[in-house]
């Protein structure tokens, strides 16, 4: 059987190819590469899905001790992160009929997978006691749907800022074709709401799980605290938008700030801070 990590390495390049084609279609305002990019994104997403499922199956083939849903370490979570970015991007593309976003979203998925391949341990390893729980799947899926929605919102916000700069330079006659700013603004809002809901559910499932595994639903562990910080930033964004009617540039900046907090919650905490989520030592 083909190894899952081989498939996933190939998928990395497919996402990259899709990203390049989206970029070409955006810059040269050509329809053809864009349409091709969409097809290639579907292929990448399918490959990503197969890779995850294969890893799942392979973990069980290695012995019942090893079998688990592939959400247990940095490598596996990055692969799933790429998948969620792919899914959310494709849904947005279909619903809002715009491909420009792909020029940022597809490279993000590619980056996540490329970064995964740099992880020292891509081997399937059996679960440590703390991770043996049914909450693992619910917690990881909800968190990463949230993260991915914020990632795509980040892509939209970058586009928005590029767009507004472009509009300042030359009114309408810019080189780059970007969907109207109102659409981008609306899209950021929708994605942030979606991401916020899933981040909320992710934090909550994590809390219920922590109650079972670590005796307390909240222990101010750095990962928990940083997820709360992220949550607070997006909560502030939603209040500015819904109550103050903030639009455009300021929301885009907040959304970028929020995504930086997401990245720190995801990577920074693991590398710079220590806590329960590092799974290094068994407590006490």
């Amino acid at each position, binding site marked *: 059987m083909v190894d899952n990590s081989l498939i996933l390495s190939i998928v990395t390049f497919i996402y990259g190819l899709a990203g390049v084609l989206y970029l070409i279609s955006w810059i040269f305002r050509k329809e053809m590469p864009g349409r091709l990019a969409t097809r290639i994104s579907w292929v990448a997403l399918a490959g990503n899905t197969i890779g995850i499922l294969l890893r799942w199956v392979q973990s069980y083939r290695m012995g019942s*001790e090893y079998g688990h849903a592939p959400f247990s370490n940095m490598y596996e979570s990055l692969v799933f992160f790429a998948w969620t970015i792919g899914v959310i991007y494709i849904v947005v593309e279909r619903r809002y009929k715009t491909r420009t976003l792909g020029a940022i979203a597809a490279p993000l998925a590619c980056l996540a997978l490329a970064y995964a391949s740099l992880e020292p341990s891509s081997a399937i*390893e*059996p679960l*440590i*006691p*703390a991770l*043996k*729980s049914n909450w693992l799947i619910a917690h990881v899926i909800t968190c990463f749907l949230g993260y991915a929605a914020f990632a795509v919102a980040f892509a939209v916000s970058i586009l928005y800022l590029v767009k507004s700069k472009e509009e300042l330079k030359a009114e309408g006659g810019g080189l780059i074709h970007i969907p109207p700013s109102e659409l981008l603004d*609306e899209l950021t809002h*929708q994605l942030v*709401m*979606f991401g*916020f*809901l899933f981040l*909320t*559910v992710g934090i*909550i499932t994590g*809390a*219920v799980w922590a*109650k*079972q*595994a*670590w*005796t*307390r*639903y*909240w222990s*101010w562990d*750095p990962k928990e*605290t*940083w997820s*709360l*910080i992220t949550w*607070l*930033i997006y*909560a*502030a964004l939603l*209040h*500015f938008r819904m*109550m*103050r009617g903030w639009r455009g540039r300021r929301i885009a900046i907040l959304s970028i700030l929020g995504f930086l*907090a997401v990245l720190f919650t995801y990577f920074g*905490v693991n590398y710079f*801070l220590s806590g329960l989520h590092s799974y290094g030592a*068994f*407590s*006490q």
Partner: protein
Amino acid sequence: MDEKTKVSPGYVDSLWRFLVSLKLTVVVLLCLAALSIIGTVIPQNGPSQAYIQEYGPFSYQVFALLDIVDMYHSWWFVGLLLVLVVNIIACSIDRLQTTWKVIFDRAPRFELSQYRNRNNRIDVKVQPPASQLKALFERWLCRRFRYCKVVSTDKGFAVTAERGRWTRLGVYAVHLSIVVLLLGGLVGSKFGFDGFVKIPEGESADTITLNSSGRLFKLPFTIRCEDFTVQFYEGGQRPKEFRSSLIITENGREMLRKQIVVNDPLYYKGIGVYQSSYERLESTAKDVPEKLSADAPIELTFQSVESGIIYTRTATIGQPVQIPEGLGVLTLERFEPEAKFQSMSLGPALLGKLVSPEGEVQTITLPLRFAKFDAMRRGKVIIAAAAQNAAPAKERYATGLQVVYDPGVWVVYAGFILMILGCVVVFFMSHQQVVVEVTGEEKATRIMVAGKSNKNRVGFQFTLQRMAKHLAQLAEGDAKKA
């Protein structure tokens, strides 16, 4: 302005305005976010020595003064949370009055001219006359909208419809949920406790050391640890399972028996007992059994002094063993837990009789802990008994348990559910009002679909478009049937 301002002093009024302001909300949210970072960088609740070593004595004094070593429970952090709660309650009271009127309005008013002028309205033309469509449209719309009413106009009729009024409550649910969560946390910290207890296998404990104060706390029951096992995956590095077999007794009576592992704690009387850690106990008889049953197989090694070859044989007590190379017959006679040799303690040992080929009988001692002991006899064969292979020594452990009582947890969980439901309502549902006006014109009938929604205007516009399309199809289809 009016009498109210005169009656209430100015500062009460401005205080209220401050409390209900959005500025306060976002400032508090962002301050909480920024300040929370401190506690993720500076380790919390560590021993004071560690801080002094890491940051120096002066910094430590500052930390201690500002409660930075336990910042999430400091007066300023809790105070900020309190401001958030007050802000949420004030805002909710302030806005709920208007929302309440909208939600419980028995006869909502639809200003038709307002809808006619909306720039999101959609017009479609159909053939059948207005009168024919009245019942049809009414039925279709009333099925989809909770409130719906038909009014007559000059040249036709209009259906006014409304749904999702209650969704305006979603935002209050989300905000209330935060108050509920904090309340649950407060209940837990005021009326709950959590502590740690270490119980060696085969022993019992009813007193825990509280995590917060280090004081001892007596539980209303006794925990007995029957057994603890730790398993590792192949390779031996990665832990697989930590399992304690526990028995809860109350006044000497056994109340509950359960094996707990990480992620599967035991609950008794609302108190949770969690597998948290373990310790290998220092034992005087390390790697060696304290007892040896009569039929336990014992691994014997015979090293021939002449050839240097080592032979292994398995024997039980009382069973004679032929030593290879014709070096004699060994019969193990008994197990001695505390053997002595010239007043030197040897620990557990096996005593046996060696009959040499010449028929000479010798008593030999085989201490389990000292394999080379028999070499001192200077015989033709060196005999050693390895007990751990024959009867694997059971290492003795103590299990480390966290014992936690948190009466606020159900309040917190209720808050969780409220928050999720509230978020779904706030983000994905809206209060929608729709007017479908049908006007008979000279050659055709005009259907106007217009409406407003309190949220997600882009999505609502799609809804209106779909509705207009569907109504037109409905009208034409009906005409064909007729």
